[in-house]
């Protein structure tokens, strides 16, 4: 069989093959993205306006940033269900520190991000050292963080943030680029560098492929597993920052179900749910596709209930199609 495959591959690498390129899941998502954009541009008048596009970008940014952390986690073969709750908890803490304790926004934001990192670290600790399945640990954290947010706020939104804080969610860089988009792009760049140019990125992929082989290669697997959940905690806190500044308040029930959107973006972007394969670009595309879909359907006046059904169907269809093609 060996020679068979070697020859097969050398045959494929001879030139750029359009058919082969479009077989990769990211390309499929890209194609889907353009098709959707074209469809909504024709079917609604508002879709292609500057205001709407900036709206989409702002909507996408929260899920996009969550999905970056989720990509790290899923690449190792794990899952993080706590991101929506962690986002709400860290967000309300940031707002609380400012309005109740009079902290300057920078300090509050930094503390909030540290809190996100700590929560992620705790997830990682239980998963890597106590060997409890990630789905259980992060499900528990989802409950704990949500409860903590409700406890901290007493169940009511905290409002009254300063203008400078609200700028992060509502402002524009150079008057045109929404700030959330700027933050999202910075997060993507950081993730790209970590995953593709640092040893730890290589280890993350390798752990998803074969953890034992990585361990026997002298790599400290537990540390890296903790690291990915820590990253996911940090990205959740950054999303919490954007969310609270957009709303100018800390909502304890914000972000419910966001973990599923983040997972959907990662998986639509072609990252294998069992780990080891995928790309951060795919995640960007996945998040954009989901954002465009809900924005376009809103513009068309499709009921939000129908939207949820459609979204579920599209996720399954996309995954089915890409796994089907990969088998060929």
């Amino acid at each position: 069989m060996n020679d068979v495959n070697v020859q097969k591959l050398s045959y494929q690498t001879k030139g750029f093959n359009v058919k082969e390129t479009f077989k990769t899941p990211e390309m499929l998502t890209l194609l889907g993205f353009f098709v959707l954009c074209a469809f909504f541009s024709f079917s609604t008048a508002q879709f292609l306006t500057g205001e709407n596009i900036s709206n989409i970008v702002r909507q996408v940014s929260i899920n996009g940033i969550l999905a970056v952390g989720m990509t790290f986690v899923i690449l190792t073969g794990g899952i993080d269900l706590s991101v929506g709750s962690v986002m709400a908890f860290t967000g309300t803490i940031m707002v609380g520190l400012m309005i109740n304790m009079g902290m300057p926004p920078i300090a509050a934001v930094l503390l909030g991000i540290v809190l996100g990192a700590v929560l992620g670290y705790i997830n990682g600790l239980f998963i890597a050292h106590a060997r409890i399945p990630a789905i259980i640990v992060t499900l528990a954290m989802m409950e704990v963080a949500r409860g903590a947010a409700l406890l901290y706020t007493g169940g009511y939104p905290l409002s009254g943030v300063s203008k400078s804080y609200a700028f992060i969610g509502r402002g524009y860089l150079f008057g045109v680029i929404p700030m959330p988009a700027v933050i999202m792009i910075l997060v993507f760049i950081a993730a790209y560098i970590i995953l593709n140019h640092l040893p730890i990125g290589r280890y993350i992929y390798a752990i998803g492929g074969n953890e034992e082989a990585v361990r026997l290669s002298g790599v400290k697997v537990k540390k890296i597993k903790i690291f990915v959940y820590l990253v996911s905690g940090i990205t959740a806190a950054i999303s919490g920052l954007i969310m609270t500044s957009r709303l100018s308040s800390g909502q304890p029930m914000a972000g419910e179900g966001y973990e599923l959107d983040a997972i959907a973006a990662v998986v639509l972007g072609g990252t294998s749910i069992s780990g080891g394969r995928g790309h951060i670009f795919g995640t960007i595309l996945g998040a954009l596709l989901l954002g465009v879909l809900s924005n376009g359907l809103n513009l068309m006046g499709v009921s939000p209930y129908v939207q949820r059904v459609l979204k579920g169907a599209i996720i399954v269809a996309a995954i089915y199609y890409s796994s089907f093609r990969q088998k060929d």
Partner: protein
Amino acid sequence: MIAMDKVLEIVNITKEFPGVKALKGVSFDIRRGEVHALVGENGAGKSTLMKILSGVYTPTTGEIRLDGKEVIFQDPKQAQQLGVSIIHQEFSLIPYLSGVDNIFLGREKRKSNGLLDRRKMRKEAEEVMKRLNADIDLNKPVAHLSVANQQFIEIAKAIAIDTKVLIFDEPTASLTGKEIDKLFELIEKLKADGVTIIYISHHLDEILKMCDRMTCLRDGEWVGTREIKNVTKQDIVKMMVGREIVNAFPDKPSHHGKEEMLLEVKKLSNKSITDIQFSLKKGEIIGIAGLVGSGRTETVRALIGADPAKEREVYINQKKVDIKNPTDALAHGIALIPESRKTQGLVLNMTIKNNISLPILKDLKGFFGVINKEKEDSVINQSIKDLLIKTPSSKQMVKNLSGGNQQKVVLAKWLNTDCKILIFDEPTRGIDIGAKEEIYKLMRSLADKGLSIIMISSELPEILGMSDRVLVMHKGKIKAEIDGRIADSEKVMHYATGGVSE
């Protein structure tokens, strides 16, 4: 003569994959009730042919005739129903179901009310086991049975549906000596019952002992079909590789000039091994022999900290070292090249490059800790050249390589670290003779360069051919240490089976 009756005819079978012909017009026939060996190096087309015979692939051209009638297998289930079953190297049993449930999986017997008829299934399963002359607890989840007994369940599964042709793919790969004997008895019994057997193996001794005829494939082509009584081992090897291999093992150095002690294991024990003590000199190859389950792999895993140890007292260059995990072992220059390439040695879904550089990424860091990709590429390309890894590019996924080339990737991974002690666990399992020879040569040249090697092997010729010193293990203990120049198979087996010093 009944023996001349053809049960299976393979007529001009060709199988093409995109860009390559895996089988090029292969024709031969299998006689009813014979044990027919299929040999060939990895990549010769054996697996492809077996996948066609068992219904996994359909041939591009050509036909299969079963009992003289042309058959087209759409899927493995249909092949089984028509009477062709395969026992894979990796069993297809469901670990937490009982033997009975496994045997009847997919064709459960039911009572008239639709519920499972457990009593009937148990009775039939017991009858099959009786036929196989095997005494196995059919109520236990198969995961709790030994590998050999699991294999029997797998065979029972095939027999229970009245198979005409049973294909064995490397059946002895994970069996001990006694279990192999039992399997051979069973094969004789099946043969006497009129079941035809196709036997795929790398072990030529087994083929010479068990089989009636053999067919050899090379590069997807039929090389020949012979009566076993008319061929020697040398003939088979010649057919497989297309040339004669005189001696696979490189010469051992007659005597070590310097007797410089490198590694001393003074105490090592855990739940599977007791009182392990041995030493390793610079430039020496020691072989660890023993039956499956004697604690060989457990010894080296405990040594490098991959498994916990109750006691671990290890000296390198007369200095005591503290090894708690594989990272520490690597830092002290000890590398384990593990037994199973696929589950422990490689990340199959990554490229050759990313696999080889896994343990050395730390040393390839440039500015701000970013991987220096130019340096990485030059290291990797050198490795590919040095070890003669056959691949169009370093970006090839390792899952697409042959066993021999995969093993070379694992080797490359460790040779780039500056490890002084290399532990090879079953270095040539499942790879063909040509690649084996290359690996033996490489091991000896590494030892000549001053590296020290610990080699675990289940293949006696390998132990005897390669080792300067042989340690024999039995039930978690080192039973004997024999000079490699005077070791012979009788001595090693004597201690491996629990014998005491004469």
